[in-house]
Structures are given as structure tokens and as C-alpha cells.
């Protein structure tokens, strides 16, 4: 490929309808962690974020599995983006994602049987995690592999971070432990509430409240400056 051809390809990139505007690679990566955090901002993947987040270990395991599926499928979809006909792209994406999900499920069952047992059906349910299909449709299917990977990693890590924050909080308050190690000592009275379903909703709600409070504060400050 000549330099000239490469330039043409670069220029041709934004012509794909709906493709994201060009950006530095680190921004593609960073966006998923902060500005476009899938859980906290886009509110995607809430089901696993609450369902399995009563222990930090679960959060880590789920995050790892999701990153694996997200990165692999994004890479593959980006690589194949010119091969897959538009009409069947969603079906193909689902096929690809489901394949990687099943792989990760089987591997977990084989090598991390206890974790796989606690996560239960939520590992195969990664298939319907809107984050993954959403990224495939909005990003990976329209950009080059490097960007797709960066984006997938960013989103995956953003998801995992949110998951870990929630699960760490719930495990800490709900049982006084982190990753199974006692933090508050043996006399701590655990708030069983936090590791039960309502605690999941509450923790998530608290996170949104904190974020809401933060953005309100920012808004008030801006208004104060304007005034």
C-alpha cells in the first residue's frame, strides 16, 4: 500500500455514515472510563452492575469476562467491517458476541468453577449486555481496529470500575469484608441489607445521587460565575 493510498483511506474514514469523528487514540480509551462511562453516564449494563455486585470478587470476575468479550468482539467486528453486509450486520454481531461469551463461560466453568457458580447465568447474559452490541454498532463496525480496541478497553474498564466500586461498597458495608478479608474486625455488625437486592438498588441510587449532587454543584458554581 502506497502512502498515497493510505491517505485516501484515512480521508475515506469519516464517509462511513454515523462513524465517530476522528479523535486521538487515548481519548477513545478515556471516554469509556469517564465522560461516557457505560454504567454511570449511559446507564447501560445496569442488570449485571446490580445483580452480581454483592462481592468485590464477583465484580472483578464479571468485569474481566466483559472486557474479554468486548475487546475480542470489537476487534473482530472492526476487522471484518468491510466483509459483513449491512443488512445482516446485527445478526452477525450477535453471533460473534455470543461465541465469545460462550467461550468465556466455558473457560470460567473449567478454571474458575466457584466464581462461575456465583455469577451463574449472568455470564451468558453478557450477550444481551447493551454495552457490547452498542459499541459494536456505534463504534467497532465503523472504525479501524486500533480505535475499536481502544474504545473497547476503555468501555470495559469503565464498566469494571463502576462494578468494582459498587461491589466493594456493598461487600464492605454488607459484610465488613473486602475480597473475603475482614476489614472492620469481628465485632462489626454487618448490614445484610446491602448484599440483598434492595441494597443493590440503593447503592446504585446512591451513586447516581452523588453524581447528581456533583453536577448540581457544578451548575450552581457556573451560575454563580455567570452572575
Amino acid at each position, binding site marked *: 500500500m502506497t502512502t498515497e493510498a493510505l491517505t485516501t483511506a484515512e480521508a475515506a474514514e469519516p464517509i462511513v*455514515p454515523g462513524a465517530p469523528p476522528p479523535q486521538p487514540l487515548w481519548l477513545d480509551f478515556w471516554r469509556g472510563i469517564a465522560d461516557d462511562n457505560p454504567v454511570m453516564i449511559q446507564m447501560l449494563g445496569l442488570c449485571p452492575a446490580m445483580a452480581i455486585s*454483592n462481592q468485590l470478587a464477583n465484580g472483578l470476575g464479571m468485569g474481566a469476562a466483559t472486557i474479554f468479550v468486548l475487546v475480542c468482539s470489537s476487534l473482530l467486528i472492526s476487522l471484518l467491517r468491510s466483509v459483513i453486509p449491512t443488512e445482516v450486520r446485527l445478526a452477525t454481531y450477535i453471533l*460473534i458476541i455470543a461465541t465469545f461469551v*460462550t467461550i468465556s463461560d466455558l*473457560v470460567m466453568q*473449567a478454571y474458575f468453577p466457584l466464581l462461575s457458580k456465583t455469577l451463574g447465568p449472568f455470564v451468558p447474559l453478557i450477550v444481551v449486555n447493551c454495552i457490547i452490541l452498542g459499541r459494536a*454498532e*456505534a463504534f467497532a463496525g*465503523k472504525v479501524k481496529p486500533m480505535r475499536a480496541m481502544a474504545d473497547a478497553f476503555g468501555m470495559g474498564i469503565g464498566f469494571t470500575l463502576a462494578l468494582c466500586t459498587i461491589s466493594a461498597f456493598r461487600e464492605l458495608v454488607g459484610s465488613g469484608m473486602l475480597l473475603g478479608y475482614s476489614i472492620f474486625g469481628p465485632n462489626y455488625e454487618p448490614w445484610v441489607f446491602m448484599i440483598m437486592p434492595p441494597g443493590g438498588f440503593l447503592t446504585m441510587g446512591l451513586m447516581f445521587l452523588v453524581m447528581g449532587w456533583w453536577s448540581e454543584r457544578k451548575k450552581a458554581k457556573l451560575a454563580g460565575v455567570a452572575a
Partner: protein
Amino acid sequence: MSGHQHGAPAAPTPDAGSSTARLLFTLAFFGSLAGAVLAYTYQKTLTPIRKFAGEKVEIAVKEVLGSPARLDTLFLVGDTLSRSVPAGVDKLEAVKVFIGINDKGERTGVAVEEAAPGFANEVRLMVGFDPATRALTGFKVLAQSETPGLGDKIQKDSSFVARFVGKLVTPLKGDKNQTTDPSTVQTITGATITSKAVIKVINKAVDTWKPRLDAYAKEGGQ
């Protein structure tokens, strides 16, 4: 598709529509590729998965039977017990009873799997007992999702498990207070329902499996 990405309209096809044949081919190709990849992964992971499942059962059986020298396995075919696996059923998934035999060749107890609804969901136990005396040799929780810190004591509180050893299932009863009655067990404070679920599972196990074992013994099997 995702419903959350309304910002991305369907891209118009660059080459004015792909042929149906091409679409079908693409799907078929990816489908078979996926099948192949998965079949391979499945083959690779099957051994460790089965090993783990088998180990788990074995550990449970050994625990409830007090590490016998040898284990015999009988399978349920219809309503009778048999030494061979029923046709068409995976050995791991077949309903079976484990018989513990000590180094003198005597039967020390049998272990069976049984389940009943608990406080939140099903409580599944491996129950070990002596069919001759109806005495419990122990139990182990295989699956439960009871209240953490309360109901899950049936799994995590070894003193609770210890209360059952040696009790007579004639049938077993629960009581809030400490008791010396041979067929009554003290329940967990605040988790009476879960405790009773355990007792129910044990009673159910003995009631369903003792006749089968007796029938099998009568027919001369050992």
C-alpha cells in the same frame, strides 16, 4: 437493535444492496465458524468442568459419610436401584445414591442428594444417613441462596451442621431451644425457616430413599 443507540442510523449499503445469496452465505459462514470454535472450546474445557463437578460431589459425599474407605454408587432406574447407569443418561447427571463402605467391607451409610424450597430459593443438600438405624451421619449444602449472615449459616456455621450428626430421623423435628431429644435439632435463631427447610430436606431424603434401599437390599444386592 440496542435501543440505546438511536444516534446511529442504518448505514446505506455502499454497493446498492448485497445479494440474498451473499447474505445467507455470510450468516452461514459465521454460524458454522462459531459452531466450530465453540465445539473446540467445549472439548477442551469439558474435562476440567466434569472433573470439578465430580470432585464436588465426591467431597460432599466423603464429608457426610465421614471419609469411608470405599464408595459404591447405585443409579436410580425407574423406581429401583441398579448398579448400571440407565441408558442414554450422562453418568454425572443421573440420579444416584452413594454407599459408604469401611475397610472391613461394612456399609457405614448412604449419601443422597435432595432439595426443598427454603426462605429465598431451593435448598439442595447432600444427606448422609444410615438406612438401618435412620441415624444421620451428616449433611452438606450443595446449593442455597438464603439470607447472607443468617440463613446461610446452614452452610457456613459448622456448629449447626454438627448438631445434626447422630440424630434419628423418625422424623426429625426442629426446636428453638437446646434439646436432648434424639430426633429434635435446635434451629438457628432468626433463621427458623431455613433451619426447617434443612430438616424438611433430610426427612424427605430418608423417606424417599430408605424404601428404595430396603427394596434393593431385599433383592440381594449389596
